[in-house]
């Protein structure tokens, strides 16, 4: 309310303009190309059609952003109060302006809406041109992922393999609560809802061979944060080899430790593992935890939070509740779980056995 010196407004406008440019350039330049879960460097057809749409929306919002913010900052600086009894011209409105700023945003929105709607219908089902679509069933469990390839007879967990350049079509189901299946580099997420099957599809780019992390993005309970997964995009021939290995039953334990471990695995008083896990070709037929037939071949264990090494495997067997508190691997106590009671020796042996299941 006091008279202003001339420095402050200028400083102010500088401040605001700096902020404006910072935030704008931030949006474009700070997007991190190296972030493994980046949403803006897609590697699939579906991902790219989202990205094209996002670019369009972003482009349209630049003039809105600069226009509105710039106008306000300019008006504030230009029309600062000069005299304490100044009474500016009492304008009440202008109908033509009102019409203009109803119509112009509507046009902007229309420009966004049309490609949006065509993208919605595009994403609904794989394009007719897609050949030899690979079917995958995804089942979300409280805090791990189960994958089936119904046409290949392969079942695995937490590590999804897809051949590059071939359209994959997913059927998404849940074993318990709502989860959401998401590999950001491949495109958007779709929820995994009990009582119904959802669908999504995408085609990993032919040159996208590599490993892409993803994770569950619908809050699903205590370990929602650690419900991760890896998508491994293989060359078609690697994928073929992987499929052949996964189809096979589990290898028989050969070494001494492995055989000891296998015994403990099947022993209700020592490991108890068989009650929750299945290993094809053995007595173990449990369905509560992931299929372990080829667990040794996976990069990570416990839904993407531990690197798959014998040491980590042993740690996981003995300390699952410390590593992943609340996880459903353990001894049920009250409403929760405790670490499994496995002796060090048994744990080491079991770890060796399980790790050998390549």
């Amino acid at each position: 309310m006091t008279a202003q010196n001339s420095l402050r407004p200028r400083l102010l406008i500088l401040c605001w303009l700096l902020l404006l440019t910072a935030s704008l350039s931030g949006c474009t330049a700070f997007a991190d190309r190296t972030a493994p879960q980046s949403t803006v460097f897609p590697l699939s057809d579906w991902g790219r059609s989202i990205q094209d749409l996002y670019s369009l929306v972003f482009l349209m919002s630049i003039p809105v952003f600069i226009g509105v913010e710039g106008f306000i900052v300019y008006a504030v600086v230009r029309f600062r109060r000069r005299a304490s009894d100044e009474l500016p011209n009492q304008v009440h409105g202008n109908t033509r302006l009102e019409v203009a700023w109803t119509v112009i945003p509507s046009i902007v929105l229309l420009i966004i809406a049309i490609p949006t709607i065509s993208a919605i219908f595009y994403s609904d089902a794989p394009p007719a041109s897609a050949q030899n679509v690979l079917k995958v069933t995804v089942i979300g469990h409280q805090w791990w992922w189960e994958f089936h390839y119904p046409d290949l007879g392969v079942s695995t967990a937490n590590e999804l393999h897809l051949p590059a350049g071939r359209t994959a079509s997913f059927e998404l189901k849940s074993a318990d609560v709502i989860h959401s299946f998401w590999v950001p580099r491949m495109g958007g997420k779709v929820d995994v809802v009990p009582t119904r099957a959802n669908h999504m599809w995408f085609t990993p780019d032919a040159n996208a061979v590599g490993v892409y992390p993803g994770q569950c993005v619908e809050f699903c309970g205590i370990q929602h944060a650690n419900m991760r997964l890896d998508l491994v995009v293989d060359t078609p021939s690697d994928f073929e080899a992987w499929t052949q290995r996964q189809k096979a039953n589990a290898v028989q334990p050969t070494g001494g430790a492995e055989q000891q471990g296998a015994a403990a695995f099947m022993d209700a008083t020592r490991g108890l593992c068989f009650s929750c896990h299945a290993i094809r070709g053995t007595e173990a037929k449990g369905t509560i935890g992931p299929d372990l037939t080829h667990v040794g071949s996976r990069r990570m264990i416990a839904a993407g939070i531990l690197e798959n090494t014998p040491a980590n495997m042993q740690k996981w067997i003995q300390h699952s509740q410390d590593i992943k508190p609340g996880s459903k691997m353990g001894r049920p106590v009250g409403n929760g779980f405790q670490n499994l009671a496995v002796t060090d020796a048994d744990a080491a042996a079991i770890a060796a056995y399980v790790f050998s299941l390549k």
Partner: protein
Amino acid sequence: MATIAAPAGQRSGLLARPIAPTGVWSWLTTVDHKRIGILYGTTAFVFLLIGGLEALLMRTQLAVPNGRLVGPEEFNSLFTMHGTTMIFLVVMPLSAAFFNYIVPLQIGARDVAFPRLNAFSYWVFLSGALLMHFSFIAQSVPNMGWFAYANLTEKTFSPTPAVDYWVVGLQVLGVGSLAAGFNFLVTILQLRAPGMSLMRMPLFTWTTFVTSILIVLAFPVITVALIELMFDRLFGTLFFNTSGLNGDPIVWQHLFWVFGHPEVYILILPAMGIVSEIIPVFSRKPLFGYPFMVYAVASIGFLSFTVWAHHMFTTGLGPIATAFFAASTMLIAVPTGIKIFNWASTLWGGSISLTTPMLCALGFVTMFTIGGITGVMHASPPVDTQHQDTYFVVAHFHYVLFGGSIFALFGGIYYWWPKITGRFLGESLGKLQFWLMFIGFNLTFGPMHFLGVDGMPRRIYTYPDGLGWNLWNIVATIGAYTIGVAIIVFITNVIRSMRNGEIAGADPWDGMTLEWTIPSPPPHYNFETIPTVHGRDPLWLQKHPQLDGHGPGGQAAPATAMQHAEQEGGHEHPHMPDPSYWPLFAALGLLVAGAGILMTASSTGYTMLVVTGVGLFILLVGIFGWSLEPVNG
């Protein structure tokens, strides 16, 4: 109640009405809209500190990868209570504080239409808040997120009573909100001063009006959702049970968001109203395009019921429904844009004084625009499938909720504080607070856009190293602490103002509306004589008579029913309503009833439902005592 005179001596209540003018009892039994406003405001501020503390804990946990400050259970409770608190116990009651204090003054009324119902609303609100926070004592804190998606909330997956605290607390809060919604609808429809036609109401009153409509229409829907969930948990009904009996968890999402989306406009419309009061006053120009602002508020209110499924774009709605909700969501940007452009045009050619309230209002307009633009990005469903449940959404809603609602509400506090207390809040501390808050806010929530784009999901208590999220998380945490400092500056400012703040006169800001025509703080009865209004911005017209009859809305006032009443020599005796024990008493009944349900939920069998029965009985006695009380307001 106000208009029915009781023949003296014919009816006496169960309890004499309390009359102490000061002391604790006077606050417990008050029915004065101004005191109730202060109660709302103070309570909301305490919850802002609590919700903010929860946020700081979360930010500290997330500052670095593999944070170890809290475990997963605690973290899940933190964001659930943070979200629930901020929405239902901070922004809503803080808005209600202004509805209470300011709306009767702006329309030239002596009180709200139902003063005792008003007190009841506040006590019920407090009961609900307490019920929910009892969970901390019971160490079973709600932990399923503020929208509590079924079927995670079913007994199978959430066996502890944590969910029940949330359900019961929210249910009771809803009763309080509904009661307040009815009251303000009636007040604004019925108690306007002569000449205050709808199209002369100040915009804050307009937004209160539309917000009340939204409350009245949206809260019943969440009430039903909560009842269904509660019955599932208590009585084994099957609404959201997925164990093969055909219960459907998506039904919860529809019910929740049919409420939830109007709810977010319940949070923003009052803020827009406040800003529409502040900007004209500190530009010394009437609001640009007043009628369009009113239409925009009304159409936002209407559209808010047509867009709910934009929160469900990833649930597999099918392409047709998805396309419909995408289009309706985008549509809502049009009336919102109209508001932004009209505020900007009010500034244009004005005489702008950058006081703290004005800074907050400008903070609102500039930051809300950013949040609105990201909202439109979400409105494109394919794009939303990349953003949904990531920090990009967290950034969006903090830009609209903090950058929008909280900035505007602080603006409202600075603007009306002199009216409420008779003293100014310090301007230099105020500006310091604003800039700290503004910078801290952008530091906290700006980087969350990048985190979202880099694929960081929300509601994760920890994240591994190597995903490219480390930098922006630490920046956001620093920002959050900066906001914390700003809040401490505000508290200092309040204490300084109450001790020896500069005395403010009746009209410290050169205001335009009726609240500035009466002393600060206003007398018990607000207006000595009810003013007659001759146009929009009545005080402004009075100060600048040369404007009278020229601007729109400045025509001579039509005669109203009220003037007739006065001409006929109104047959009723005037007095302000006496305080009453009954609102508090009845609200206590709801508190006990809620506690009974919680006890039932944490025990086996239904014996504890007796407590609920007792509570409902207290409520019933309260209602009877209330309606038999000698009628004088």
